């Protein structure tokens, strides 16, 4: 069987079973209450008439002399009218013999004399009878037909079943509607997920009711889908950018070699061609190394040797290495150190500082200045690097850490891959730190790297 596997059918089955149980309980109780109410009324009628008969027998004259004669039943006309009629009460009176001595007109034929040990109340087919073994006769029985009551009860039972069936049908239809309504978002979620699985990541679940449980689920899924789409787009962009960055050096190699091979060249020309190819290849190597490093940082595979790390020493060493580059561009580096210790990988932190410093020197005016400082404040150890460069446009500022982002949208002959700051940021984040940038056009740019401080 396949259908009970669907939630809709299972819910419907449970719902139906529950409804049937409740309705049966109700119907059964109602039927029996009604039945016992009617019987009680009949029994009351029977008992009152029985005592009438017994009293009527005893009220007869004392005839001690004629002991063998049966006593006479005396009833007032009023009392007599209680028998027969529409309700059909009857009485039968016996002495010792099985033949009754007196039978009322409404009595059915051949009412058998009850045995001595018979119950006080007996049901004989369509008749209900109460009896009493009492003097001065042997046995008095009062009965009536309960055919009408039985028929009415059957009608009542039938009505109960009909009402129950109607309620069950209405309940099942209502339940089906409710289940369908409740499950509708699941269908929509499934359809949207299927469309996304087919590759259309821009699909979203249509969500009218964001308060219900399924609505909330749909919201969560939509958020997830959105994030996935953004990630895929970012990945696709990254791949396109990487391919794009590789195109230029490949073009250089193709153009240079194809041009050189068109004819015989002097040794000097061959040398120039080979040097150009070498530069292009170096550029590709730098790009590939940067890409690999970023990929490892992204995947969290880059091993970090975290230990107590004196930022003052790290920065001082880096500045020492940068002096030739700064001197070549006639740039003065001003240093200002106060204690700053953090937990980190000294080599990686040096990479961060070197990158920030070389950027500060490179994107600076000739004869400009670079300020570098360390200090601790509010539990953070900081490195600040500031320069007197051309600054970064406000529009570009949020994108300086983006991969392959470059200020003026063009390759520069310096061979920067456009990944330097992205790598720096990834390293700082891997240390649990933060990297911020502020810039003012024509004034300079200011980078702050913050790490959690350690006790010196």
């Amino acid at each position, binding site marked *: 069987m396949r259908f009970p596997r669907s939630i809709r059918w299972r819910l419907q089955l449970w719902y139906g079973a529950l409804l049937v149980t409740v309705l049966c309980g109700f119907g059964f109780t109602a039927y029996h209450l009604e039945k016992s109410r009617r019987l009680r009324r009949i029994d009351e009628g029977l008992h009152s008439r029985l005592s009438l008969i017994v009293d009527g027998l005893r009220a007869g004259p004392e005839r001690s002399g004629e002991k063998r004669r049966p006593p006479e039943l005396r009833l007032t006309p009023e009392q007599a009218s209680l028998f027969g009629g529409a309700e059909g009460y009857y009485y039968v009176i016996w002495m010792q013999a099985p033949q009754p001595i007196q039978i009322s007109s409404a009595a059915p034929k051949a009412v058998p004399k009850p045995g001595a040990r018979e119950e006080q109340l007996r049901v004989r087919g369509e008749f209900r009878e109460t009896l009493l073994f009492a003097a001065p006769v042997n046995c008095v029985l009062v009965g009536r037909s309960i055919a009408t009551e039985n028929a009415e009860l059957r009608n009542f039972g039938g009505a109960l079943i009909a009402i129950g069936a109607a309620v069950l049908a209405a309940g099942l239809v209502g339940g089906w509607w409710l289940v369908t309504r409740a499950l509708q978002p699941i269908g929509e979620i499934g359809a949207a997920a299927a469309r996304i699985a087919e590759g259309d990541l821009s699909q979203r679940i249509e969500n009218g009711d964001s308060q219900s449980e399924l609505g909330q689920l749909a919201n969560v899924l939509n958020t997830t889908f959105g994030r996935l789409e953004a990630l895929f787009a970012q990945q696709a962009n990254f791949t396109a950018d990487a391919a794009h960055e590789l195109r*230029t050096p490949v*073009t250089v190699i*193709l153009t*240079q070699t194809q*041009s050189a091979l*068109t004819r015989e060249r002097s040794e000097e020309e061959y040398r120039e061609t080979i040097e150009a190819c070498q530069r292009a290849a170096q550029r590709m190597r730098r790009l590939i190394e940067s890409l690999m490093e970023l990929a490892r940082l992204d995947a969290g595979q880059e091993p970090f040797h975290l230990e107590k790390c004196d930022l003052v020493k790290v920065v001082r060493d880096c500045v020492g290495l940068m002096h030739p580059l700064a001197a070549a561009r006639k740039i003065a580096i001003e240093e200002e150190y106060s204690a700053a210790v953090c937990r980190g990988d000294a080599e990686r932190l040096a990479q961060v500082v070197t990158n920030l410093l070389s950027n500060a020197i490179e994107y600076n005016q000739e004869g400009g200045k670079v300020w570098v400082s360390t200090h601790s404040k509010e539990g953070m150890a900081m490195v600040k690097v500031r320069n007197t460069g051309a600054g970064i446009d406000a529009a570009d500022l949020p994108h300086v850490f983006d991969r392959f982002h470059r200020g003026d*949208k063009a390759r520069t002959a310096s061979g920067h891959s456009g990944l330097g700051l992205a790598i720096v940021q990834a390293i700082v984040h891997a240390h649990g730190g933060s990297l911020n940038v502020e810039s003012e056009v024509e004034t300079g740019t200011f980078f702050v790297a913050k790490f959690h401080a350690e006790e010196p």
Partner: protein
Amino acid sequence: MRILVIEDEPDLLAGLARSLREEGYAVDTAQDGEDGLLKALDVNYDAVVLDVMLPRLDGWEVLRRLRQHKKTPVLLLTARDKTTDRVRGLDSGADDYLVKPFDLSELLARLRALIRRSASEARSVIDLGAVQVDTAARIVTRDAVPVVLTAREYALVEYLALHHGDVVTRTTLYEHLFDETDDSLSNLLDVHVSNVRKKLGPDFIATRRGHGYSIEA
């Protein structure tokens, strides 16, 4: 033919310029968008090779500003190969489009086609009676016999052939045959004209005194 190459990668620029010069073109170069635009507006180039990613002014902007003044054929070089980029390039006024990395031979062929088209010459072989100029193979034949010409001489013949029937002034010839590194005040042009006449017949190039030179159709 005089061509301007605007490209910021120095090794690529040098390689392109060398190849184009060896093909007989006069080549000017620019390393950024601003310089390139100035030169393109200043000189009537036969074609401009324009990289899209440039410092100072990007290729789109150079193209846009150039198109406000001139119809110089432009071949765009770009590293982007999405259809939208190609459509944008052609829609903003580029005459052709080449995606990096490209083969040098394809670049040269596309340049030849561009120049031919801008001179309203659909075929690559120009028939001038006894003399035929094959602009694809860069060969000039006289009575079906190939004639050996230097690159400059060929360029002179090709330019006049592409404009056959018209009078081409000395200034125009100077502008299209010599690049910014040549000394345009020299009498090099007269030397080339005289050499071509020796090889292709004294009447091949007619002198219109006071106006310039022409090849009769």
